[in-house]
């Protein structure tokens, strides 16, 4: 996977003329996007270079502790972002962190035990990046759905509570709905894989010289792992999260 092809820096500079096309287009068509395009491009280049150098540094360290630290840093950031979607939830960050970490942990374990990947930074970090990013998007959707449902379905939940239901049986429909909402994009993406688009990671492997069939094997692995991670993360997050819509007297807040 890592006998990569080098890119010439000069070629990269030349390819920046592509940005120029976009700028000219924006200017002549009065789209007023020149400033944003310019700033966006500069930001992307700087961010990516910083990340690139950090990764190169960590890859060189070969010490699993640094890989693990970086992993936790990614999970924390993702958790912070996902929790913003459920801004009315108590402990949103902790819940997201636990769910994303569990999903990531279980999936990585299976991949490592099955021998699909090794606990080496150059494999763990990009793979975890995909896992964590996918979980973050899934959780954001779960939380958004859950917050909305608890608002719209107040009557249903209160009716069930008044009939003597506990908080779980009074919100089980909402919980299921939210888990489903979190998982659906990943399942949908799975269905159209390779037909609508070649996924970014596969494109990357092929560009770097991996044979398409080998790239596909990795892509299949990635598909499996994203399915498992979104399922685990959504499930844990929703089952932990619904409680924060009730107070200790089992009343809907």
């Amino acid at each position, binding site marked *: 996977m890592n006998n990569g092809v080098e890119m010439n820096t000069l070629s990269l500079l030349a390819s920046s003329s592509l940005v120029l096309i976009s700028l000219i287009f924006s200017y002549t068509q009065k789209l007023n996007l020149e400033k944003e395009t310019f700033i966006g491009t500069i930001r992307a280049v700087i961010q990516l270079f910083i990340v690139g150098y950090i990764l190169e540094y960590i890859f060189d360290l070969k010490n699993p502790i640094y890989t693990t630290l970086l992993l936790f840093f990614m999970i924390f950031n993702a958790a912070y972002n996902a929790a913003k979607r459920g801004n009315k939830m108590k402990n949103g960050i902790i819940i997201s962190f636990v769910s994303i970490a569990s999903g990531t942990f279980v999936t990585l374990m299976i991949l490592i035990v099955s021998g699909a990947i090794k606990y080496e930074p150059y494999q763990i970090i990009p793979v975890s990046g995909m896992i964590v990013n996918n979980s973050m998007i899934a959780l954001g959707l779960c939380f958004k759905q859950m917050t909305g449902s608890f608002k719209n379905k107040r*009557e*249903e939940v*209160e*009716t*069930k*509570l*008044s*009939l*003597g*239901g*506990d908080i779980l*049986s009074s919100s089980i*429909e909402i919980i299921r709905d939210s888990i489903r909402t979190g998982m659906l994009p990943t399942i949908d993406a799975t269905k159209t894989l390779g037909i609508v688009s070649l996924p970014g990671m596969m494109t990357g492997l092929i560009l770097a010289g991996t044979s398409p069939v080998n790239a596909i094997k990795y892509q299949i692995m990635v598909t499996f792992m994203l399915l498992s991670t979104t399922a685990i993360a959504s499930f844990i997050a929703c089952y932990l999260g619904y409680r924060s819509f009730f*107070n200790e*007297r*089992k*009343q*809907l807040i």
Partner: protein
Amino acid sequence: MSILEFKNAFYTHGDDDIINDLSIKIDKGDFIYIVGPSGGGKSTFLKLCCHLISLTKGKILYKGIDMNQYDPIDLRLDISYCFQTPYLFGDTVEDNFLFPYKVRNKKVDLNKIYELLEQFKFNRDFFKKEVKNLSGGEKQRIALIRNLLFKPEILLLDEVTSALDAENTLIVEDAIKDLNEDGVTILWVTHDIEQSKRHGNKILTLENGKIKSLEVIQSE
């Protein structure tokens, strides 16, 4: 000892005292009609009674013990609340009737269900009916039956006959009267002053979250 007692109860939301320094003792077996202007706090009062919401100040005692000492679910199993706007969940009437059995871990008693359906002049097939096709009055009675599958200690009714014709209103009134004679304490919110004079032993008027009057009706 009263079955339910409010002691200097306040329920405040923002700056509004929705229930404002209310004290009342309700005895076991009471049949109290609750009347008063819209927005007077009647529904809020009932929701406090079944612990769907809690006071912001003061105390509510159930059988002499502060409600906060009970498990909330135990309270709601004893004190059954029938909402002002009936909400039927799931797909069918069946889903609604099975819920009370499920939460108690009890086997479904079809005989009881059929008996109640018949009492409220429904066909047995109604059990399988889809809830989205029901009329307003049908929804109201199905929701009420859902509250009657198990005999509560206190039954809280929030304008449960507002969508019913005269005949069905009488059926409901008779059913509730029977329950009351069986020892169930009834609190019934209504806008129908005539109704409030028919069966109850007390009429409570709530206005601005306070008791305006508590009138004892002499049975003739």
